[in-house]
């Protein structure tokens, strides 16, 4: 206790900072979170995506707040108000593009962030809860993105809402009533648009911010994993600090700023030169107003949902298809308990895990591609094959992680340059 008191004496400072620190733990917070927070010194490029996700979240909040100032919710006004923003509000085209493309950017960085965890076993003990909070963020993000996609009330908005809400109708007994309750009408209508607006702008952002806070608190509690999957806290020097750790500030704050620079450059190139990204980030059918009498053809969800959509479509029974879609998302939640391997990082795993991770990677990307294609027989058959690959990564994991011949993990982190 004495040393703590001494430290706080040193940190409190004099003058205004001293006055402030007596009333608000400013220096203590900076010290705990940045200066005295030790992160492994072997982070590679895969460790950029957490801070980038935070950056995109802030960008979405700011651009979203400004869009809300001009957007007019309602089935007769929504589409027109988005056109108004794009054509007549000063720099409205830029704010709207930043927000719409930001949604895709969010999923790009989140998918890479999640893939990092798969490669380096960041979901394994003691980081199970950190992983679960991350997965809940992913779920909230999917809901946020889906509802945001409905708001411009373009024809693809309308039909995406129709198809996605109808997935709930496959639930036995309560399904049809539940769908009517979600829509607030006998079809997707003004009532649906209004409640989605409220959820997109108020409820889900609040939930997202809370989950992000929990994710960060849990991260500070267990510490970051690293590409070697070595617990740096288990090897401390005589000063009580991890020998393989470096203070988050200035080392990783500066490194993250470099990542931010790269990211914003790429992001700006997309926003200014290829805003629709070949129909992936903005879809042509959504530049037409919602029309309940005309389904756009071909119809495909946003690229970040297509792996699950391809699985849904691959099953010739609608109830089982919807169930497999749900399981495909939920499977990630169980990873910490499916993985029986004694090592975390792919660097020290055997051929089994490496092979299955490759199968998963190929399957996920292939399903993403197939979900964007029309539902012809050859595409559907291919989707069936890759759906089996996708699920075998999870279902067989307790077996192959046990059989795997792992290498021994060194005590110190290494650099692969």
């Amino acid at each position: 206790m004495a040393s703590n008191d001494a430290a706080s004496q040193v940190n409190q400072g004099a003058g205004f900072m001293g006055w402030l620190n007596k009333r608000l733990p400013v220096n203590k917070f900076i010290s705990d979170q940045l200066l005295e927070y030790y992160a492994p010194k072997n982070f590679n490029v895969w460790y950029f995506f957490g801070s980038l996700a935070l950056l995109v979240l802030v960008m979405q909040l700011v651009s979203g707040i400004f869009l809300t100032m001009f957007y007019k919710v309602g089935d007769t006004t929504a589409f027109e108000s988005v056109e108004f923003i794009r054509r007549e509000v000063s720099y409205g085209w830029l704010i709207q593009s930043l927000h719409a493309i930001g949604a895709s950017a969010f999923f790009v960085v989140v998918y890479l962030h999640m893939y990092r965890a798969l490669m380096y076993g960041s979901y394994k003990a003691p980081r199970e809860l950190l992983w679960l909070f991350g997965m809940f963020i992913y779920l909230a993000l999917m809901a946020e993105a889906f509802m945001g996609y409905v708001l411009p009330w373009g024809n693809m908005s309308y039909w995406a809402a129709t198809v996605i809400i109808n997935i709930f109708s496959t639930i036995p007994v309560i399904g049809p009533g539940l769908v009517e309750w979600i829509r607030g009408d006998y079809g997707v209508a003004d009532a649906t648009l209004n409640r989605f607006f409220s959820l997109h702008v108020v409820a889900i952002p609040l939930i997202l911010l809370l989950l992000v806070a929990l994710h960060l608190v849990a991260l500070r509690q267990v510490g970051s994993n690293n590409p070697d999957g070595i617990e740096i806290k288990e090897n401390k020097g005589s000063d009580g600090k991890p020998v393989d750790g470096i203070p988050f500030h200035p080392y990783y704050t500066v490194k993250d700023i470099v990542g931010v620079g790269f990211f914003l450059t790429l992001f700006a190139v997309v926003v200014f030169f290829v805003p629709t990204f070949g129909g992936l980030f903005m879809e042509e059918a959504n530049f037409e107003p919602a029309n309940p009498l005309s389904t756009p053809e071909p119809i495909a969800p946003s690229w970040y949902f297509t792996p699950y959509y391809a699985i849904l479509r691959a099953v010739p029974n609608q109830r089982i298809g919807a169930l497999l879609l749900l399981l495909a998302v939920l499977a990630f939640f169980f990873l910490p308990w499916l993985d029986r391997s004694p090592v975390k990082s792919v660097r020290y795993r055997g051929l089994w895990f490496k092979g299955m991770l490759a199968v998963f990677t190929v399957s996920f990307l292939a399903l993403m591609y197939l979900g964007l294609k029309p539902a012809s027989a050859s595409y559907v058959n291919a989707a069936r094959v890759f759906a089996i690959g996708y699920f075998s990564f999870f279902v067989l994991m307790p077996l192959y992680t046990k059989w795997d011949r792992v290498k021994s993990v060194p005590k110190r982190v290494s650099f692969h340059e």
Partner: protein
Amino acid sequence: MADQEAVDLDRRKFLTVATAATAGVGVVFAATPFVASWSPSERAKALGAPITVDLSKLEPGMMLTYVWRKQPIYIFKRTPETVAKLAAHDAQLKDPKSSDSDQPAYATNEMRSLRPDVAVLIATCTHLGCLPKQRFEPADAELGADWPGGFRCPCHGSRFDLAGRVFNGSPASVNLRVPPYNFENDNTLVIGSDDAAVQGAA
């Protein structure tokens, strides 16, 4: 202050649990209006009233699309030849007798209709709600030589025949739904009300 030492832990636990349970009941009551607010409003219900359709200009092989309760309704006339052929492909259907499908009792037959010549179907695919497209020409190049004519959904490829019955291999599991309807006279169809039809059938 002797009674301060004798804390009745059982009593404390009972009071804690009883308070929590009461609060839980309160939460359920307080949540009810908010949950109920999501149900279709009185206005939405009123706008879901029956509609009338004039069939006098509808030729066999032609189709009309009307909207009832935000759902497109397909109304088309079948020729006697089409009606005769409907039973021929029962083996290719998931539910030829409509026993697992959703339709009024008076439409639970081979034609899935009150009258064999007039078909009335809710045009939202029973899979996930897209609009199946009209593919009335038999032996379609894309759908195969044995295609008897019907509908194909552009979203996920479900196929239906001219009675709205789903073909094997479709992601949809049940036939297109049939709304409640009746005929005011030979050429006037009422969608959304089946009082006359039910009385007529009885």
